[in-house]
């Protein structure tokens, strides 16, 4: 009798303990994987989010940096982590689209569950303040008249800038010499130092040296509030839009409720006026898209990009 009571007691204890383990999600800290170095643009934006995360979630957000290979290492780490809702990460497009296509990266856009998009950074066409080019049309005219003489700076290869160049070169006559740089800072320095004549850069990065440059066109659908006078490429007669977007994802297979919870928190943060003000102060062009919309956009974009790459013979 004593034995049976003991065993029954043990049995109920075990049931209770596992019951405790199934407490409300999340019950331990959530890991955020950042695929770039500490202090970079992606990190800055994620840290701003972290500031407001504490308001809406009791568990802390713990940052883990896995930089390398232009973000590919970090994206791989996110895709390969356990889909238990306790690991999420920041991703960038078109990086996550292009890297599997061109760099044999071991992940793909289908290996993620999308939480939301937070940043939409359009590309701009910029020249030095004292440059002889006063409009995008002049640049294209000069390129046509002097093939290969114009030096165009891009971050890359296999980046959003590279794609914009390939698209323009395919749709219009644009014989220039593209020069690739490791990062936006090097690209800025090269333009200011005279090594290149014109560059396609991110709005966010160009803002750093705005006083020394002229922005001649912006590859977005609407005018940007930070540079309201700059015309869109569409208005200037060139049918191209090009953005670098940032968002947050979880590895594919996360429980539906947990994903909904994560999406809910990020939505609350993105709509918080204090967060919006902080993003403006840091010069980050924020634009919120919910998980499903982001997912749809990325898959559509992949088809676009594949077409451009095939035409440029970079993809078979």
């Amino acid at each position, binding site marked *: 009798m004593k034995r049976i009571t003991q065993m029954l007691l043990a049995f109920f204890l075990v049931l209770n303990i596992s019951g405790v383990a199934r407490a409300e999600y999340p019950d331990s800290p959530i890991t955020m994987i950042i695929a770039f170095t500490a202090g970079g643009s992606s990190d*800055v934006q994620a840290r701003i989010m972290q500031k407001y995360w504490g308001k809406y979630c009791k568990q802390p957000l713990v940052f883990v940096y896995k*930089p390398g290979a232009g973000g590919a290492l970090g994206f791989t780490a996110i895709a390969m982590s356990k889909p238990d809702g306790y690991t999420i990460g920041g991703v960038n497009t078109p990086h996550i689209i292009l890297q599997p296509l061109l760099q044999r990266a071991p992940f793909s856009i289908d290996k993620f569950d999308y939480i939301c998009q937070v940043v939409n950074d359009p590309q701009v066409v910029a020249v030095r303040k004292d440059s002889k080019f006063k409009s995008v049309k002049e640049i294209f005219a000069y390129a046509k008249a002097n093939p290969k003489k114009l030096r165009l700076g891009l971050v890359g290869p296999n980046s959003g800038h590279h794609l914009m160049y390939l698209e323009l070169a395919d749709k219009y006559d644009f014989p220039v010499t593209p020069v*690739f740089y490791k990062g936006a*800072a*090097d690209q800025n320095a090269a333009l200011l*130092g005279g090594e290149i004549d014109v560059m396609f850069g991110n709005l966010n990065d160009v803002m750093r040296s705005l*006083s020394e440059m002229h922005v001649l066109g912006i590859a977005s659908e609407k005018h940007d509030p930070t540079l309201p006078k700059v015309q869109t490429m569409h208005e200037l007669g060139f049918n191209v839009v090009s953005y670098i977007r940032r968002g947050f994802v979880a590895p594919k297979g996360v429980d539906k409720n947990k994903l909904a919870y994560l999406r809910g928190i990020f939505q609350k943060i993105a709509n918080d006026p204090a967060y919006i003000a902080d993003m403006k102060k840091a010069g980050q062009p924020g634009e919120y898209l919910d998980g499903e919309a982001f997912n749809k956009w990325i898959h559509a974009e992949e088809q676009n990009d594949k077409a451009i790459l095939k035409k440029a013979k970079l993809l078979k």
Partner: protein
Amino acid sequence: MMEFIGPALLHLIEPLNIFLMVVGLTGGIIVGALPGLTATMGVALMVPATFAMNPTSGLIMLGAIYVGAIYGGSNSACLICTPGTPSSVATTFDGWPMCQSGRADFALYTSLIASALGGFIGTFGLLFLAAPLARFALSFGGPENFWLCIFGLSTIAVMSTDNMVKGVLSGILGILISTIGLDPNAGVPRFIFGYYPLVQGIEVIPAMIGLFSFSQVLVLIGSNRTYIAEFKPTKGAFTQVFKEMMTKCKVVLLRSSIIGGIVGMLPGAGGEIASIIAYNESKRWSKHPEKYGTGIIQGVVSSESANNAVIGGALIPMLTLGIPGSAVAAVILGALLAKGIQPGFNVFSTTGDLAYTFIFSQFAVNLLMLPVGYLLAKIMAKLLSLRLTFVAIAIVMLSVIGSYAINNSMLDVWVVLIFGVVGYFASRVSLNTGAMALGIILGPMIEENLGKCVNLSSAMGGSVFDVFVASKISVLLIIMTVLSFISPFILSRVKKKDATCACETAQKEDHHA
């Protein structure tokens, strides 16, 4: 500028800022002294703490940690021949022999004073020459950077005067190792043999921790000693060192600091390269180059003043162009951007308060380093009284933890272990580990810039050589590189001539006598 000096100095004497400077210095020196923990890590760890402070105080603290860590690396470099940070690799060449001959306190005080003075000169450059130097740095594009890196590699020729071929081969081996990973120009993986994590390449810091720190642990253990070295503290060592530096080392100090400042300004090149190049150059121009490596003050002075001068240099492009001159400057830049401070040429006018307070805090930190460093050095010297076993265990632990903490990647830990073994056998095959380290660091930069030259050449009609000779700076650098390679031969011939002359005069005197 004048109107900012007053408020800047007032900010400096705020109690919070003084507290942050001292705490930052102390923390930085300790992090720097521990092998396996680097300056970048120390600064990056404290960045979140700055979010709660106002930008000026946060910047002051990060700057203090940076200075402390770069100096701190010399402590372990001298005491246990294990560079605490990669910037102190060249300090081991002369600091360790000094320690082994019982003069550890001389070594520690030399590096302290040299670091402080080097830091002063670097900050001086930042204060007065930021704008013109930044514009000068802008004129360094693909071809110029390419030849500058090749010139940096050419200083290897001086490193191993007895066997230049082996030195060059070690450098080339280092470059070959650096090709593992992603091709910088085509973005395609290379030499990864199907193991995807290798796509990040062989990270420089774990490789250096392995080559110099971990290999040294193996050597120490193999030496079967109970204690690392005998330590006979000399009274008044500090004043002796100070006097000797002021009389015999002025030129070395100035030249090394300038080299440090210039290398610091170039993006991607930091203390590791600066200290090795400064050491090599001091050796090249010294009257007794054979003494380098035996434990002379000049050796420690050249390395330590260069790596601290790098700080001032790295901050110049960071503040004026938003282009960090070193890895730590990149972290600090991120902290600034998160606070909404935009770098640019008007950082000295629109955010002049912040900029000038920061610069003056750097002067203050270099001054404060003398008392703080002096106290800590006395404590660190007690390390020599610990049993070797414990020290060795501690170094191994720190190397593993430190290298893993960089990228959260086990690959880095393997790199440390493998390069540790390579470094251990290095001396038996006369592999020059310093040259190899230079190759690993400079390899990617050389390739990237060569790629840019090739890209640019299509705008010039297709010949890369046209690109090379297009700018005056590149041509100058090419000439300097050639001279750098032949200088050892010329200098040794000159010395032989002097020696034969001396012999002849001695013989003549013999005859007369």
